[in-house]
């Protein structure tokens, strides 16, 4: 699947890029894992626990 993305740079250059989303997907997933980890770490560092932590995207679970 391809998207055509128009980007505009000063002074008004227009660039057309083709993006292969299938290639970017695993990178995005791994990056999400890293970002989620960082968010949790920062929260704990600030608050001492995860009490009050809420996120629409980080699905904390109880597997056992």
């Amino acid at each position: 699947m391809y998207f055509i993305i128009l980007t505009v740079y000063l002074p008004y250059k227009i660039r057309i890029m083709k993006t292969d989303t299938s290639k970017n997907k695993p990178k995005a997933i791994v990056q999400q894992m890293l970002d989620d980890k960082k968010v949790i770490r920062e929260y704990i560092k600030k608050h001492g626990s995860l009490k009050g932590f809420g996120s629409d995207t980080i699905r904390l679970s109880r597997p056992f």
Partner: protein
Amino acid sequence: MIQLDSLDHFEVIFNEESLSYEFTTDDTIKYIITFIDYAQVIEVQFPFYAFGIERYPENERSISNNKVRNTVIYILSKFFSNNQNALVAIYDSLDGKQKSRKRLFDRWYHLFNDGSVSKEEGCFNSCEEETYAIVIYSNRNNNIDIIKEKFNYLINQDFFNS
């Protein structure tokens, strides 16, 4: 092989409010263990979690290292009591100590694995740091091939190649 039942470990509680497992050492260092559900993100139909372990205060270490180790192993043994669970972990690399963490976990793995679980490992470059990742699954998991395939799909990418 050390018997997991005989391990001296700290009491683990599940915090319903924060959805995390916690234990506190005798010297009041708190450990917070998280399992983040990525099944939907990775597009699998079985339990697939990312494992995280944080310490508070971050820069303090308990003198009861072995008991901390035992407690983490105890938690993982409980996790794999459901043999359909799969777990991925990325060794933290923000402080540059990811290799040490990997070596430590490798030691634990060889010390405590009774043959019931297996792992795949990989590394990638993130922000110009070599970063290690691991996936662990029960040998009785019905989806081993998919687990390996998904893990390799995630790891064997030219990460940050721009």
